[in-house]
């Protein structure tokens, strides 16, 4: 697992977010920001080939 990267964000924006994140179920501001990034990346990134994804699942006992 790669480590963490420090990013400088607008303090006022972070304060606004910090007040709300736990009420919607995040464990903190970091998780909220990571989720926001993931959602956008999912739309932008090209995914791995289907063959590669299926290869990674090989051997999982619950699936044929």
């Amino acid at each position, binding site marked *: *697992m*790669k*480590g963490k990267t420090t990013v400088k964000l607008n303090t006022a924006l972070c304060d606004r977010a910090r007040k709300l994140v*736990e*009420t*919607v*179920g*995040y*464990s*903190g501001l970091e*998780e*909220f920001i990571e*989720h926001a990034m993931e959602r956008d990346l*999912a*739309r932008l990134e090209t*995914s*791995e080939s*289907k063959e590669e*994804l*299926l*290869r*990674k*699942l*090989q*051997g*999982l*006992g*619950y*699936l*044929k």
Partner: protein
Amino acid sequence: MSWQVLAYIGPGAGFAFLGSFLAVVLSLLASFVSLCIWPFRMLWLALRRKGRFGKARAKKVIVLGLDGLEPKLTERWMAEGKLPHLRGLAEGGFYGRLRTTCPPLSPVAWSTFATGVNPGAHNIFDFLNRNLRTYAPELSSARVTKSDRVWKIGKWEIPLSRPSVELRRKSKPFWEILGDSGIGSTILRIPITFPAVPFDGKLLSAMSTPDLRGTQGSFSWFSSDSDESSVEGGVKLPLTCADGGWRGDLPGPGSTSVSFSIEIGGAGDWVLRIAGRAWNLIPGEYSPWIRLSFPAHGIVRFLLTKTEPTVSLYVTPVEIDPENPALPISHPAHYAVYLAKLLGSFATLGMAEDTWALNEGAIDEDSFLKQAKLIQAERETMFFSALDRTRRGVAACVFDTTDRMQHMFYRHLNGDGRYSGVIEDLYRDMDRIVGRALTYVDKNTTIFVLSDHGFCSFRRGVNLNSWLHQNGYLALQPGQNEGGEYFEGIDWSRTRAYTFGLSGLYLNLQGREGQGIVKAGEAEQLRTELVERLSHLMDGADLAIQAVYESNRIYRGPYLDAAPDLIVGYAPGYRASWGAAVGRVTEAVFEDNNKCWSGDHCVDPSAVPGVLFTNQRCAAPNPGIEDMAPTILRLFGIDPPSWMEGRALLT
């Protein structure tokens, strides 16, 4: 004139000397600095911990997870006096059935155990997730992406950096919260902890840790009478005659392989030669872990399963070598190395018991049992070594042999054959481990023995894609009656709902799925219609589906968008069919399950609760697995954070 021969000392030797010298000097310097600041570090830690343990009800918490331990069997054998330690724990403290998650799957339930939140807040809903644009399946718990910096030489690709690995389980496990307060934990083999995330404590990853080939476990099955072919969960490979013996190539990651040979030695025993070493092989007995370099480091066990008239050899998946791990399987990174050096090598694969090798006939029941027991012995050694070293904080370990063996031997449970006592013996052995763990319990220690779900038989499979097709919700390409794996042949432009994985049903929602057609305004009505039609679905005279749950009613949290729209609660005896789990459409909705994998828990959660034992009195009604994290935090005097949903059971 006399000739003198003068030795030439080139600059390389100087660099080598200076390099080594510098390394020694820096090591000594680091040791000196570490020694100087050690008293201050200890003082700082003691001050942090003093405050914390001052409010604590327990100095030490032991968690013994027995994956899939079934309450009905436990209660029966406790009543018959066959599980004396569990019975004693129940009589002196507390025993109750533990409410599991919906769906009752290990990755989902153990994630809830760790975080104290529902799946909508930890993002694990099944073993599989889907790519919303392409519908392609992905492992829900971790994403391993190959290094994008590679050096290509001909057909070889040499990665110049390590793969990128992400844990997809969200929220924050209780051991990280304890670590923030200076309370250390040793977390062994709790599912969905790969990759290991840094925290103040030690952790060894479990379920979803891949093998060295990047799969969830691919065995190799060599035979002197077969050509190369694929089998489910592995590959069948030839042994070729060579020098009076047989030779094979064991595949590693990518295009790498390691050659080996087997032959009958002078004393009449079988000798395996691999990587410059020779090992005696006894037919029917596993070799020790053998370390190999591909050049990434892996470990395997060999098992000679047949010697005449043909030779057959089973090789376990190439697991990540804990002494030189290619991926982050522990925190700190050297913890796996330390365990391997201290206790010997051990299985690192997420689901190490090779269920597909038994399903496919590469090994028989006896060999599967031997393998499971070897793995269990490794875990037991590791767990008690951790208990020996834990004076304060949490020591937690999940034994998953209970789950794997029930999956494979449930069909024998009520029979009178050779294996009819396997599950009872397994429960008795777990009781022995509980008894051993109880010797580490004093008045300042709280112990929990729990399972994440129970078990039931798996006799019939249900293909809901086929039901959706027959009832006009799913369409195939013109002229097709069946669809292939992972939605091959599905006409998305006419499909409103589909299924894959073990319990989820998805709407093909416009704006969410890549080729979605169900408009947002129609989704609610479609969900209601499917719930009404599928709840109490019958297979002839038998109930196949007990209930269907709408995820937006049972989950809450920021990851709700990734959840299946409906969760199917199959009746005991039923489960998603093998075809439905991989997105196939078949002509028949119902089919017999004839595999060795004959027990399961992917049913309605009310049918398969887990168990909870503790040495403390507990009056809380209806305990749930989400209550465990807040309970452990409260035992150490820490208020559970606001996002945690469970409640502390021991107040």
